[in-house]
């Protein structure tokens, strides 16, 4: 019975971590009672379970994950969807729309649309299937999508949402953090948006340092002061910057490993969005929104397609 690493030590593949009655879990493997690391990452001991928190890696879907996805193909009553990583997902109309729905499901969501969805099934034999039945799972029509390394998502969310909530509170922005490394951001002004991106990028590069929440917090306060200072000279910017925003409590509180808490997205102006569950009888509104969507959508679509290349 022995443990051969310090708390949160950086370990490399093949490093002996523990011997004896320990259980191997994520990022480790067991070889005749000895537990070795299989990844570069931070070793942790929880109870008698040894795990390694990965520092790199592509997105491997897990049931219950909230993801931000782009629609690639409309195939009959399925959407083929890009969620990043090695596996393409599919979203069946039954899991997204309320019945009855029209035969041509591209009326509801078409190629290039960006959505937030939940992984409802994934195993080795059948590729990931998405669902959009949860609260706050919709087509994203405005804002932008930022891509970060999926391995850093737990850090961006923080312990029971501490990090993301802090950022939302400070900047008064709406965010949805997908486990697949995509973050949807809607900010009241470009300055705030840039600041949000800067914050997420900082977290990404410094993910394994301590007291990160505090440092990000003070960085944001500082930068906000600067923005305020510059805005006072330009009044017209101020107006947009101080648009009334939603109360931050309703923000998605996502946990790394937590149960599928599909982002309870803040209810701002979401009635305007084409809810995928829109029953066909409300078609007139859908069509109207469709036109609107085309103008607004540009940003997220562009961003995502850029990242694919």
């Amino acid at each position: 019975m022995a443990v051969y690493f310090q708390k949160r030590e950086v370990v490399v593949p093949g490093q002996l971590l523990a011997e004896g009655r320990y259980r191997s879990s994520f990022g480790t493997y067991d070889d005749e009672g000895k537990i070795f690391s299989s990844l570069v990452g931070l070793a942790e001991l929880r109870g008698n379970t040894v795990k390694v928190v990965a520092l790199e890696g592509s997105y491997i879907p897990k049931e219950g994950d909230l993801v931000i996805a782009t629609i690639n193909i409309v195939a009959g009553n399925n959407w083929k969807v890009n969620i990043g990583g090695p596996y393409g997902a599919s979203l069946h109309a039954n899991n997204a729309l309320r019945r009855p729905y029209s035969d041509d499901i591209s009326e509801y969501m078409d190629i290039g649309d960006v959505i937030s969805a939940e992984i409802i099934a994934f195993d080795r034999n059948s590729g990931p299937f998405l669902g959009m039945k949860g609260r706050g799972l919709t087509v994203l029509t405005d804002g932008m999508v930022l891509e970060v390394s999926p391995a850093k998502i737990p850090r961006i969310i923080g312990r029971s949402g501490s990090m993301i909530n802090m950022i939302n509170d400070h900047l008064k922005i709406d965010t949805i953090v997908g486990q697949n490394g995509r973050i949807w951001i809607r900010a009241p002004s470009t300055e705030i948006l840039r600041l949000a991106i800067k914050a997420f990028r900082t977290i990404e590069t410094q993910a394994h340092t301590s007291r990160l929440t505090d440092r990000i917090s003070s960085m944001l306060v500082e930068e906000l002061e600067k923005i305020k200072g510059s805005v006072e000279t330009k009044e017209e910017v101020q107006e947009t910057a101080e648009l009334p925003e939603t109360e931050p409590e309703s923000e998605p509180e996502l946990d790394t490993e937590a149960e599928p808490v599909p982002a309870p997205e803040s209810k701002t102006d979401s009635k305007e969005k084409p809810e995928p569950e829109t029953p066909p009888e409300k078609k007139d509104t859908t069509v109207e929104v469709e036109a609107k969507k085309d103008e607004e959508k540009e940003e997220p679509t562009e961003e995502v397609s850029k990242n694919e290349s």
Partner: protein
Amino acid sequence: MSPEVKPDFLISPEGLRIDGRRPDEMRPIELKVGVLKQADGSASIRQGKTYIIAGVYGPRELHPRHLTLNDRAYLRVVYRMATFSVPDRKRPAPSRREREISMVIANSLKPALFLEEFPKSVVDVFIQVIQADGGTRCAAINAASLALADAGIPMRGLIPSVAVGKADGKLLVDLGDEEDKYGQGDVPMAIIPQTEEITLLQQDGSFTKEELVEAMRMGINSCKYLHELQKEALKRTYVRKPGDEGDEGYEDDLETDLGEAELMEDE
């Protein structure tokens, strides 16, 4: 480029090699991790004058689809030499030798990787030889293994690799270009260091049984030394710089889920 001349001797009367090394001494090695920005994982190696860059992409969707393996990821290794990497211009078309070395490298890395965690996908390893001065396949394995670790591909351990050869009747570790060309043979090998399992063993030239056993012993020793360098290179890239830490305060733990861990205490 002046035509190469065969050196008069590979081992000097004092028992040293042409570049002044002892028989069991390796060339100076410099390993770097994370040298490419676009790749998911990357590493470079300088081993004497040999300079190689390896980039890893994936696991990602596999194209063409018919290569898909249903129970594990496909490991696709592409070893290529730059046209300027050798004294004569290397013709840029993929050669038979490159194809073979790609396959050899893939086979020596595969036993260490947990590819079964990513069925139907592909892990791409691209190896580019910038400058060749002997031992490129072994250096390529060293770099590729680091790049795979950098990409976050789960593995049993890093794979160190070295060639042991024979020149003027003496066994030499880590052959340089001349020793390779004018020597009497070489044995490239790669191991999984924890278990000393051999994942690559090739032989060129003729060795007696005793020589081969001794060559393998020397190879394993050198691989273990290389393994230390690899571990050190990886840690250097990831360990936070001293100064920006208060080691005590992990109040914002990134780990929320204790899972069954605490319940299993007395199992």
